[in-house]
């Protein structure tokens, strides 16, 4: 196997010299990708121009009707807004908290870092169905533990209908999601801060920098690529939120906790409007790509250049 570093080499020439690697290492995965990931994406876009009940052998071409319907659909806007709220909560709560905890553990600001790390990471391994069921019990208005704690702390006035009140419900869901998600940013930052040379922190320490300055001026600038990965992960996680809604509220009250991912499922598999479901799918796809490109072009410009 000759490693070609400086010579420019055509793919065919490479393939001739490395038949095994080309076939099983490149061609096979790309083919699989094309069948199971590429083709479905293209098909979704295609389907968004049709009306189809999922069963009938024929699909009716409707042009842009699905799109114009979508832009007039109240539930689409509610869902879109909810996804954005979810994203904001996820960036503000799990990501920031995950960073703070990782930093505290790395500078040994806490006494039992392993306990904390294990506690926070554990929910990452739980299915969101289990997490959802758990918080349905904990936030239950009659027997729930959360309201009991609030009352015991003298914060009884905060007790609300966590799922019944349409103004709060989506935030309840997003915070439950954040609870389950915090371990992931924490682990990424924990590993990331571990890669920063220790001398950098020591030097800042000697210069008399406090923890706030250390975090903002020393740690974060060094962790740009980690932050970029974490934020991207959070973005895609927020845009595909589904499980918690399916378990906890099913969009209730009055469709106020619908998110785009759940809307796709409802419209396609419950209302048998596969064409419109595909249209909303395309909206999710466009949104993911648009926000990702925007962030990579501005805040995270060059963060992935190695």
């Amino acid at each position, binding site marked *: 196997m000759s490693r070609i570093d400086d010579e420019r080499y055509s793919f065919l020439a490479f393939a001739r010299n490395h038949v095994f690697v080309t076939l099983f290492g490149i061609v096979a995965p790309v083919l699989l990708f094309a069948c199971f990931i590429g083709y*479905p994406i293209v098909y979704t876009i295609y389907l968004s121009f049709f009306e189809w009940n999922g069963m009938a052998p024929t699909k009716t071409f409707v042009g842009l009707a699905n799109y114009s319907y979508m832009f007039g659909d109240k539930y689409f806007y509610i869902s879109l807004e909810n996804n954005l709220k979810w994203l904001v909560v996820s960036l503000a709560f799990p990501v920031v908290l995950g960073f703070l905890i990782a930093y505290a553990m790395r500078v040994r600001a806490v006494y039992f870092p392993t306990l904390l790390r294990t506690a926070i990471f554990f929910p990452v*391994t739980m*299915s*969101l*169905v289990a997490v959802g069921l*758990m918080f349905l019990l904990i936030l239950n208005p009659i027997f729930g533990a959360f309201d009991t704690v609030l009352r015991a702390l003298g914060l009884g006035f905060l007790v609300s209908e966590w799922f019944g009140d349409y103004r709060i419900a989506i935030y309840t869901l997003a915070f439950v999601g954040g609870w389950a998600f915090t371990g992931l940013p924490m682990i990424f930052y924990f*590993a990331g801060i571990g890669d920063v040379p220790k001398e950098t922190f020591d030097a800042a320490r000697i210069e008399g920098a406090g923890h706030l300055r250390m975090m903002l001026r020393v740690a974060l600038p060094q962790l740009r690529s980690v932050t970029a*990965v974490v934020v991207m992960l959070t973005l*895609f996680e927020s845009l595909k939120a589904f499980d918690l809604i399916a378990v906890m509220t099913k969009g209730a009250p009055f469709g106020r906790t619908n998110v785009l991912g759940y809307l*796709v499922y409802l419209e396609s598999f419950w209302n048998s409007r596969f064409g419109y479901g595909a249209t909303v799918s395309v909206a999710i796809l466009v949104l993911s790509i648009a926000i990702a490109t925007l962030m990579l072009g501005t805040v995270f410009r060059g963060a992935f250049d190695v």
Partner: protein
Amino acid sequence: MSSVALLTERRTFKRLRFAAPRLFATLLAFILAAIWLGPLALMVMTSIKPNKEFLNGPFALPIAPTFEPYQKVWEGLNFGVLMQNSVLYATTGSALAVLLALVPAFALSRFEIPGKKYVFALLLTGLILPQQTVLIPLYAVLRSLHLLDTRIGLIIVHGVYGMPAQILILRGFMTTIPREIEKAAQIEGATDFQIFTKIILPLSVPGIVVGYTLNFIAIWKEFVFALVFLNSENILPVTVGMLKLNSDRYITAFNLPAAGLVISQIPIVILFILTYRGISSGNFVGSVKG
């Protein structure tokens, strides 16, 4: 006051000054740990409480602990079957994902392949794609292959969708294997295939274990694909089967859902304990980044 006393006093003061912020931080850390561990502990406690004790409030310790809820929920939901199915999907799906990923990871870690960039771009697309975008076409594809509502259909989907992450993890791992050994083998006239099977594969076992474990957990947690592609009761995984616990019949008795979700988490707890060092230290993160 003698100077010695003053000195010791100063020393304690100094020690306190350094300990205080750390104590405060630790206190905060304990509160955080309580927020993260509390719900789990509460569920375990709730799951062994008899129904009539619920009037004592959510934090009342069980007076007459019982395993009846476990028995009830195990039989009522047919948990035995659900667990078997989930174990089957997680073991075979991850195995398929790793198998599909091995040679591509080898190729991407060892060769300067023309157009490598584009392969990476494809992989990342597969990694970040929201499942909902491909739900409908995959449903149609599986139906036309007569794989809808079958175990094998779901396993294939899990395998293919696990592949991109596995390629990245394994590639990261294989990149760290020193090249000297294979250089020597190459001089002896070994082919790519021999180098892969005789050198890279045996040395990649730790990476394979980490990748497999992560994929196992991911499939155990997975919900959307199973919900949409499966229908028959006897092939549902735990995540979908557990939805029943959310019906009014069960939610009136807290101990049943609590017992159910404790059961659903047991295999992962075991896995978590076995592989804790490899996973929560975040070593895998490095392989994803590069």
